[in-house]
């Protein structure tokens, strides 16, 4: 099956703290077509995200399709709050890159 990488379909792919205990991920499309293509593809689901980051699905606390912005959004629990001892990304804003290479069947 032919596939396209998510990075080539989305306008914005980002991550950021949502409060002190969570990191939220936004995947935003310019066109409704790409938004529909990805959300119906079955390649971007709770299960796929859990597998990609190697975390239990229970750590994914929100998984929302947000029509007004042509966006898919999900949020994960941090294991320790942001900025704790041993932190690597206080703002949580460099946790999205693994999403770029997700292969979407077209």
């Amino acid at each position, binding site marked *: 099956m032919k596939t396209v990488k998510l990075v080539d379909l989305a306008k*914005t792919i980002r991550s*950021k*703290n*949502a*409060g*002190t*205990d*969570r990191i*939220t991920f*936004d995947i*935003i499309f*310019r066109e409704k077509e790409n938004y529909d293509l990805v959300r119906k593809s079955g390649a971007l689901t709770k299960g796929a995200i859990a597998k*990609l*980051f*190697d*975390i239990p699905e229970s750590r994914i*606390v*929100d998984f*929302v399709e*947000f029509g*007004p*912005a*042509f*966006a898919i*959004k999900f*949020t994960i*629990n941090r*294991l*320790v*709050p*942001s*900025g*704790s*001892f*041993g*932190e*690597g*990304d*206080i*703002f949580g804003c*460099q*946790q999205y890159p*693994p999403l770029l290479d997700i292969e979407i069947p077209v």
Partner: protein
Amino acid sequence: MQKETLRIHCSNGHLGFAPTKEESFWIGARTKPDYYCCDSGSDDIGPVPLGADKCASHREWQKHDLELMLLASRQQGVPMVIGSSGDTGSNSRVDMYVDFIREIARKHKMKKFKLAYFYSEVDKEYLRKKMEAGEAIEGLDSRSNLTLEELDKTDRIVAVAGVHPFIKALEMGADVIIGGRSSDACVFAAPAIYEGFPEDIAYYCGKVLECASFCAEPYGAKETVIGTITKNDVKVTAMHPEQRCTVASVAGHAMYERSNPYYEHVAGGMLDMKDCVYEQYDEKTCRITGAKFVPVEGKIKVKLEGSGKVGERYLGMAGVRDPYTIKHIDEVIKWAKDQVEERFAGKEYQLSYRIFGKNGVMGDLEPVKESKSHELMIIVEGVAPTKEVAEEVAMIGMRQIFYARLPEVKGTAGTAAFVLDEVVEVSPAYQWTMNHIVTVDDPMELFKVYTTEIGE
């Protein structure tokens, strides 16, 4: 008389964190808005500023941004409202901002005006009493209810204000409000409610304006936007000549930094954005209708943020270039950890390694297990109850990377490259000990409002 429309100027999504851009500030100011409002804080910056009671922002940038707002608002005789002063909204940060306002007023020989300020810090004993009386301090975002042990570990607590202390300050006739910790959206919602606009409109207006030009495109922070509200709608307009507020940029911003794009909780209720309708009103303006504010049933719940000290902290840095050492980096780290443990066995300390080039940014979330980097940077973090021990932990932890014993290493004159052959003292380590809510009888009971006169 009640205004038909209200226009609120927002020049910076986190006042002082990076300087406000002046061109769009003055373009906005020339349209004579009714209020100048900015939020100046965030919990994004980690637990250190709140715990250590200091700023993350630069003092000169904070003053610069406050000066712009005070000049414009005093020239036009309209109110200026600041929330979450000095990054954390702690009492000392409020006092500091009040001093800045005084200093700026003196510099420009401003005429007399009334300044109101309020504090948001919460006394630990207030919460302890409630807890000992059997009241639960509920955890947010999957946290458990607060324990006395967690309370004991906390050094400073701020409550996140809703609109209430801002409205109170406006009722007291404030020209300038310097607020303690508060919900970003409430800095804008409060004047709108005070002016008689519906809560649905007021809170949504706050939600869309709170990050200034983050709701505009193309991307560019610290530029001014203006929100215009009537009883029926909110319009947001970008002031920078190159920026526009579009359906995509405004709807996209609704998701920013939040777990769920449809709901926003504040002290006093919840903003429901499920039925929001976004329309392009003119080239630079997006119009939004359909937001609903659902007031809380029963008593008001106020969010609490708490930070507690973990220990003194030193950092060390070590680079590695030898491919054989890179391949065996986990053994190198184990060796260094063992050397620290040999010296400090049984003593209280913490030692962390972040290996950049391997998984330094993402840690356990990193899906790339096999590093292809030809060089690594290792950040060593040592934490202990005293500076002496923290320094030694970091120092041994760093230097033993240099002395790592790998059987087949070619370079036998040192297995690490140092940027500095020393470890550096950084802010003590703190932890977010509280992300909870407390139930109150009166939303004002946690926020004391004071007024003072400033100017000649």
